[in-house]
Structures are given as C-alpha cells and as structure tokens.
C-alpha cells in the first residue's frame, strides 16, 4: 500500500517536470518551426530585400513586406497616441481620486472592454467609426476617403488596448509605497503635486514598459484591424489611406497560400517576423516591470 502511494507521487512529479520543461521550450518550438517554414523565402530573396522592398506581387514572386510593416507601425502608433493619455488619466483618477464605489463600478467596465472579442470590435468599427471618418472627419482634410483607413484601425485598436494599459498602470501606482506619497503630502504638497512629483515620476519607467507591452499587443491584433483598415498592399500616404497590417495579410490569404510554395513561405515569414517583434517587446517590458516590482518589495 505504501509503495503504491510513493509510486503515484513519483509519477506525478515526473509528469509535472515534463510539462514544465515543455512549457519553457514551447516558445522555442514555435519560433523555430515558423523560422524553418520561412527559410525558403529568406534564402531566395535575402532578408534585407524582404524587409525593404515595397513591391508585393505574390504571383510574380515579389514579396516586399515594407507596406505591411509600415501599416502595422502606423496603426499601432495612432492607437498608442490615443490610448496612452486616456489610460494614464483614468489610472490616476482610479488610484488617487475615485471613491470606493466609483472604483467598484469602473473595474467591471475595464473587464468588459478587455473581454469583448476582436470580431465585435471590428463590427463596431465598420458600423460606427468607418462611416464617421468617411463622412465627418476625412472631408475636412482630404477630398475622398472610404473610411476604411489607418485612422479607423488606430481608433479601434486604441479602445482594445486601453484595458491592458489601465490594469497595468493601476497596479504600478499601487506598488508605490504609501510612505513616499504620505511624506510628500505631509510636506504640504497638494494631492495633484504629489501625483506629478512622486507617483508619475516614480512610475515613469513602468509606464514606458506598459506602453511597450500595449504596443506589442497592438502589433498582433488581427480581426478587428482587418475589418476596418481597407487591406490594400501599398504604403499608406496619409491617415486617410487604406493600409494592410501584417496579421491581416496572414489572415486574408490563408486559403490561397497552399497552392504556391513561395507564397506559403512568405506568409510564414510574416508570422515569424510578427512573432519575433512581439516576443522582444514583451520580454523587454516584462523584465522592466519585474524589476520595478522587486525594487519596491525591499524598500
């Protein structure tokens, strides 16, 4: 009887170690398999041409990723520009000013925003934001715009990353020791001065890290952006032009890619590129956030 218990225990332990090792290796597995799938097109064209050429003619074998890379960047940057100020203000408000009742009310709001599926955001974008841009905003700046634009993608994405930013920043502000803010208040500083000189300054690196994390989330968002950004493989000339981010490229062409080996490899290159960028951004910001967390644990 005693033996059976011991054997069970040992078996469970091996099982767990196995899963743990697998979990760590999993990132490498994904990375390498995408890389090997992308290798044919890298060999054929060389990396620099792929990244810097803007000619996308898969049927002639031209794979220039520049329009897609720039589209991804533009859309994400607009999203951050809109989302960051709003999130910082709301996080400060929730941390320092809001009463318990307001906090209680606002937390589910953030939850719900982060829970709404991308397709629903995309639907909202096409129904509300796209017409708004083509009828109200764009005519003031350009002659004609369909509304399916960089700007539409950016606005929808902004709403999608706000919950992530708020939850990290509220956490950041909360990790600042009360002694610090109390000291400032005791010296006669107003609440707002304390926020400016203590809270925001102390959490500056954390806010940057949160921004980087949100940026990487924005890079990878697929469905919502695909539905509102027009999907034309050219470098967008202005915010009121259509664009074609990397994830949308992969998602739109999955049906045809099996017919041509070069095409499949090129799309896998897109996935690999996205993977690497997101991983690097994630690692940098996670490490920064971890260090901030550690710094305050011992003070």
């Amino acid at each position: 009887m005693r033996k059976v218990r011991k054997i069970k225990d040992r078996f469970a332990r091996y099982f767990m170690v196995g899963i743990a090792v697998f979990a760590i290796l999993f990132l490498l597995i994904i990375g390498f398999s995408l890389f090997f799938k992308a290798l044919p097109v890298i060999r054929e064209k060389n990396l620099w041409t792929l990244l810097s050429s803007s000619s996308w003619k898969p049927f002639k074998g031209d794979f220039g990723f520049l329009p897609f890379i720039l589209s991804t960047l533009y859309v994400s940057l607009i999203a951050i520009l809109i989302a960051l100020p709003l999130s910082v203000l709301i996080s400060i408000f929730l941390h320092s000013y809001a009463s318990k009742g307001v906090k209680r009310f606002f937390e589910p709001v953030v939850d719900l925003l982060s829970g709404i599926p991308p397709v629903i955001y995309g639907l909202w974008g096409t129904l509300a934001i796209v017409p708004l841009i083509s009828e109200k905003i764009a005519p003031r700046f350009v002659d004609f715009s369909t509304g399916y634009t960089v700007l539409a993608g950016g606005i929808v994405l902004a709403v999608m990353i706000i919950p992530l930013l708020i939850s990290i920043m509220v956490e950041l502000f909360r990790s600042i020791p009360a002694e610090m803010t109390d000291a400032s208040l005791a010296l006669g500083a107003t609440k707002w001065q304390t926020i400016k000189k203590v809270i925001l300054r102390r959490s500056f690196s954390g806010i940057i890290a949160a921004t980087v994390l949100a940026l990487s989330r924005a890079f990878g968002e697929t469905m919502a952006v695909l539905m509102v950004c027009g999907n034309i493989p050219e470098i967008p000339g202005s915010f009121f032009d259509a664009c074609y981010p990397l994830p949308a490229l992969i998602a739109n062409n999955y049906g045809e890619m099996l017919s041509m080996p070069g095409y499949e490899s090129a799309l896998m290159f897109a996935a690999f590129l996205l993977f690497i960028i997101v991983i690097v951004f994630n690692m940098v910001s996670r490490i920064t956030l971890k260090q901030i967390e550690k710094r305050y644990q011992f003070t």
Partner: protein
Amino acid sequence: MKYLEERIFKIIMITAALIVLGVLLFILGTIFYKGLPSLNFDMITKLPGGGFYLGKEGGVLNAIVGSFYIIMGSVFISLLISVPLVMFINFYLNKKSKFAELIRFSMDILFGVPSIVYGAFGFALMVYLGMKASLLGGIIAVSMLIMPVMMRSLDEVTILLSRELPDALLSLGATRYEMIKVILRQLMPGLITSILLATGRGIGDAATVLFTAGYTDNIPVSPSQPAASLPLSIFFQLGSPVEEVQNRGYASAIILTVIVLILSLASRYISSRYSKNKI
C-alpha cells in the same frame, strides 16, 4: 493657483473616464441596435438552411455548437497542462526558485503571442502531421491560446493561498501528490474563475480557428471534421453582399457578446466573492 491646476486636471480625468465608459456603451449600443431586429429564436435553434447565405431561413446553431465543442476541448487540454504546472511551481519548487521564475516568465511571454501566430503555427503543425482543417485542429490551436491565460490566473490565486495548509498536510504524512489533491479542492473558486476567463478569451477569438478549424454548415460528429465557430460565422455573414445575411451577422454578434459578457461578469463575481483581501 495650485488648486486651480488640480481642479482642471480632475475634470480632465473624469472626462477621460466618461469617454471610456461612453465608448463601452457605444459599442454595446451599436451591436444591440443593429442586431436586435434580426434576432429571433430560429437564430439559436436552427442550422443554416439551403438558401441561408442568400437571406433565406436558418440560424447559426452550427457555429454555436462548433464554438462550444472547440472551447470544451481546449479548456480540457489546457487544464491538463496548466493545473500540474501551477501546482509544480508553487508546491514543488522553492519560493525563490529560478526555474519557477523562468516558467512564469515564459508564460507571460506566451500570453503576449498574438492569436494569429498561434493560428499560423497550428496550421503549420497540422500540415506537417497531414491533418486537414478540423475540430481537433481548432482545439489544439485554441488550447495554445488559452493555456497561458488559465495558468496565469490560477497562479495568481495559488500564490495567495496560505502556506499553513500544505505544511499541515505534509506533516501528517501525506505525499505531495495527495497534498495537491486537497489543495485543489481549496482552490476550486480560483480554478473556476480561470476557466471562465480562458473560455471568454477562447470563444471570441477568430484568428486562431480561421486556419485550423475550417468552417461548415453542419455540426461536426467527429474530431476530424471541420467545425464552425461564432466569430467566424459573424465575420463571413458580414462579408455577404445580401442585406438580410448581414443583419443576421449583427444578430449573431449579439449572441457572442452576451456569452462573453456573462462569462466576464461571472468570473468577476466568483473571484470577488471568494477572495477576502480584494477591493
């Protein structure tokens, strides 16, 4: 002067909060306003009929059941992986173990990997194994997506668990494996919360199932058949030029939104009810 600045900023902050609240209401309002007229009982009880994509009768039962199958399968798979993993790093490894830190770190990174990358990887894997787009393929891809979600949220509640219970169990002569069986019962609310969170994330994601699960008008009867899913069903209906089909797409969007809202509120309710030291 300094009070004036504070007051101005306070107003700006409240405005920002109201903007975000307004956007949430705007999104929900748009979906319900557009979808409610076409929402009826047939939508959730009938399969797409012969002329469904031309605006004739039918519903999206195929997508609802397909999504349900996919999420059940992937929740099961990710439970099998995330529960042992969380138990391992919390109760087998030392609190300051570098190994545990590495596992948590890689889970954080996996959490950030975009769903389209999981979709592409899952698709590459399926091509390698000679599989076609199928329920099983969808389950595998969605499991990869939700496993980090589940693991992280379960880890968060497990860390908060007091160390006394495990110590007491061990000193009574229980093996670690037996100890974990008891602890899991203690962790039940946390486990359910993490399942709900993972379900909410997995059920709404289209990019993972796009390549891997395929699409069909029927309910799959074996794991090797393709399976429809709600987000894709919405996406395809919206792409139709027929107005009635689009309207039904809006109605399907209501179905998905309501499912996700219920999951989100339920997980918040359970986690706030069973944890003491949260706001």
